[in-house]
């Protein structure tokens, strides 16, 4: 019993294809991967929005002037 479908390399490589674990679950893996990707965007959007809301009230006029001068 092996997650990659082979428990020994006593094989002719000409007859071997995929050797990754859990072959047959590719659809599920893609779903998990896409969920991870979409969740990342969701979290990032929310966090950046909150950060910008806070940041827009943080500025000190004098410091902003000096930053503008600094370029």
């Amino acid at each position, binding site marked *: 019993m092996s997650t990659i479908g082979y428990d*020994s390399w006593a094989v002719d490589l000409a007859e071997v294809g995929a050797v990754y674990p859990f072959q047959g679950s590719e659809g599920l*893996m893609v779903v998990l991967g896409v969920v991870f990707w979409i969740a990342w965007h969701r979290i990032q959007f929310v*966090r950046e929005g909150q950060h910008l809301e806070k940041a827009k009230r943080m500025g000190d006029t004098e410091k902003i002037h000096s930053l503008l001068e600094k370029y």
Partner: protein
Amino acid sequence: MDGNLNALTTVFTEFYYWVTVVFMFLIHVGFCMYEVGASRHRNHMHTLMKNIMIIPLVTVTFFFFGWWIYWAFPSFPFFGGLNYEAGAANLPWSQNMATNLSDRITGVFWAAFLLFSWTAASIVSGAVIERIRSSALWVHAVMIGSVFWIIDAAWGWHAEGWMVKYLGYHDAYASGVIHAIAGGYALGVIMVLGPRLGKFAADGTPRDIPPHNPWMLTIGIFLIYSGFWGFYAACNIPVISPEGIGGMLTGDTWTATNIYLAPTSLSAITFNFLMSMSGGLMAAYVVSKGDAFWTFSGGLAGIITASAGNDLYHPIQAMLVGAVGVVIVYKLHYWVERTFKLDDAVGAVAVHGYSGVVGLIIAGFLLWGAPSSPYEGFATVNPVGQVVGAVIMFGVLGWLPGFVIAKMQAAAGVLRIPVEVELQGLDYAEHHAYEDAKAEIIAADKAALNGGGVPAE
């Protein structure tokens, strides 16, 4: 080299490893830039010199005895004696370790392993910046680079290593044999060395010591990524026939293999390198709330976590393994820092050590039952073997010698720089001499100008 195909394969393999060595040089360039970027102005030159001198010191010792250890130690000491026969060709006085037209591989193969040795030493170097004596670090560099990592390579990263044979240990791209051991070693050293002045407030609260130059740090990490490509390629045998392997494989299909001579492909490791890096970067961005230092390092931690099984994983598995690993590593780093007041200056223990350990354990489950070797009688990959392997890498060959040698150095008073020097900066004396020399030459030039004469030669 009998026959054209054999000659072509030999020359291709020779050139292949040579290219990986050149790529891997970038890892060291990256570490240098990273360490200098992370250190403060007053310590730059010493930080740089500390890391540069790892190169010659580990190189010569790896020539003198490190390479021999790899060939002589696969069964030693628990499952057999030293393999004098295999070791003989790799002794520094062997004709194979020189210009020799009947051996075109040993030099480039030696160099590929040597570059791993530099990396192991350089990982330790990052954790201890701004307070260790260079002399102490250079002893550690030789011990981790030319002794302990290469013992673990003989045991767990060799086609006949006892850990592979009896534990089913699988660590294709060195999660454990480079990263866990170096991280563990660094942990042992910083436990004795202590934190940088100011790292912890009086009540024990850790303070962030920000890098003086985030740009340099960024370029450094991207150079490490670039070199890591070479590292991955160097972990493979690029092309070999079933006959050349001499194991259980049948047929006549040639293949690339991992270090254990079990089949994989450059295509597989290219998919998995990039996907695990991406998973690591994305997870690190989220868990660190966009912290630049952790996000960039997270890509590296993602690759390291997936490396043990990246010869066989599916790319999405590699991505998720990289992501999960980074979250664990990030949380563990801050827990250890708060709880034990340890100062891991560049996160080396976390990014390399914890990632390596987590990666080994995950591989034990994901690759459960997969053959660890093409040879008969070897255990298959399993979680127990991977956990025991992680303990050996991180704890026995990493943490323990790092701690013991640092203790000996501390007892002899040669581990840490004096407090006064730490405050004024390691470069103070050189900087002072530089300013004096500058003032003197400016004064001489001005005198020559006012006198209308030519400056003194």
